[in-house]
């Protein structure tokens, strides 16, 4: 697993040529709901 620099990694470089990433999930969606629960660590 690669540790990124949080929000900074989500930012496009000014003269960047390409981006590709996948954010690591701490919890799978199977632990979630189609309602939006109050989880402070959740991305959404």
């Amino acid at each position, binding site marked *: *697993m*690669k*540790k*990124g620099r*949080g*929000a900074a*990694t*989500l*930012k*496009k*470089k000014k003269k*960047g*040529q*390409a*981006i*590709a*990433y*996948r*954010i*690591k*999930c701490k*919890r*799978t*969606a*199977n*632990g*979630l*709901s*189609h*309602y*939006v*629960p*109050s989880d*402070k*660590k*959740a*991305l*959404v």
Partner: protein
Amino acid sequence: MQNHAGAELSLKEENIKKAGKLLIDPDNVFWALLFDQGRNEAARKKILSLYNKRRKELDASMRDFRFTTEFNSVYINPTDICNANCPYCYIPPSKRRSGKSLDNRKLLYILRKLDKFFAPYRKIRKTKPMIIYHASEPLLMKGMIFSSIEKFHKKFHFGIQTNAILLEKKDVEFLKSHKVSVGISLDSLDPKINDLTRKAKGTTNYSRAIQAIKWFNGYHGLNVITTVTKHNVKGLAGLVRFLHSNKVSCVLLNPVRATRKAVIKLRPGTAELTKYFIEAVNAAIEVSKRSKRRIIIGNFSNIVLGISAPKARRLMCDISPCGGGRCFFAVTPDGSMIPCGEFVGLKEFCGGNIFKTSVKKAVFSKGFKKVRSRVVEDIPECDVCIYRNVCGSPCPAELYSLSKDVKGVSPYCEFYKKIIEYAFALIAQGKTKYLFRKDALSDIKFEYSLNI
């Protein structure tokens, strides 16, 4: 759209406005954006090398995510009766007028039964399963459901979806102190437009919903649900700004689901929906940039997650198969277990009665299996769409209600394509940080990242 040259036949290419050239594997949602129209061969080589390295792992991860059946939530409708008469409600009007309600004894029976059903889940996971009190209007049974929350709050997380008409200040304190997730329905900032679709007998949900939002005062577990119709579509951005100024951190702008034929006429046109939805996304980014507080549009952020962190998605409607009968199910006041609340009234999907049969039997029933077997690969048009595993072509209940077939293309197909492309544009512009909850951003880790 064309296949990528050489051995990388699984990667498709698409030019996206304001984003660049997209390379994507539609099956595992590996993606990369090339900003010089893909002319830089060195950048392309690096992407292909990353793709080859990660492909098997991503395939397995997506397979596991889509096809694992593991329940974490149950929607309980405590009553069919409602104090409102919203024209798009998925509960048939006859049921809302004179339907059944659970009594305290029956509700406790259901919760005890679900507690046993979830026992193995608790051993595996550290989080509690979730019970959500949902349609019609659960607060008509306020005493009963609040008492159940007090009794079972150590066993379950609780949520409630309400029109707020019966919500009082002391209720808000109760819900906050028990960390209950609360969804408040509000369709427009304009009371006249709001009341077109959120009709209530002798009162209005408008002033009550706004009062409740103020009482909650930035409560983290609050979200507002707006059903988008042809009536309110133009006011979405204004609503987002208002909610942000009232400390709401999450709003869902859900295009109306026509689970009854009469509702079709309420659908907004695709072009109009796309235009004003994107305007609302931009408004959310703009107000979030300007202040310390964020507001996210949950269903758009979920699309962004579908691209950048597919397994972190919270809304299970955008996944194929969806979460109905796979991650959650619903229990109606007569005890019927159905894959999702949207299937109310469709008897062929009922998995049995919770007062007579086991939950396990419902899980393996024909109706539940039918929803779990609906995959985008079997749907003409979706099978060749590069975004098929970002959108999931919702909703099977809506499609079945109108055509008696779950395997159809979403009526919002073109809308989804446009907002997915807009999500890629925001990714290209580095704006995604405004689309996620702030608390989580400092803690983000990556499976892989390439930024060249």
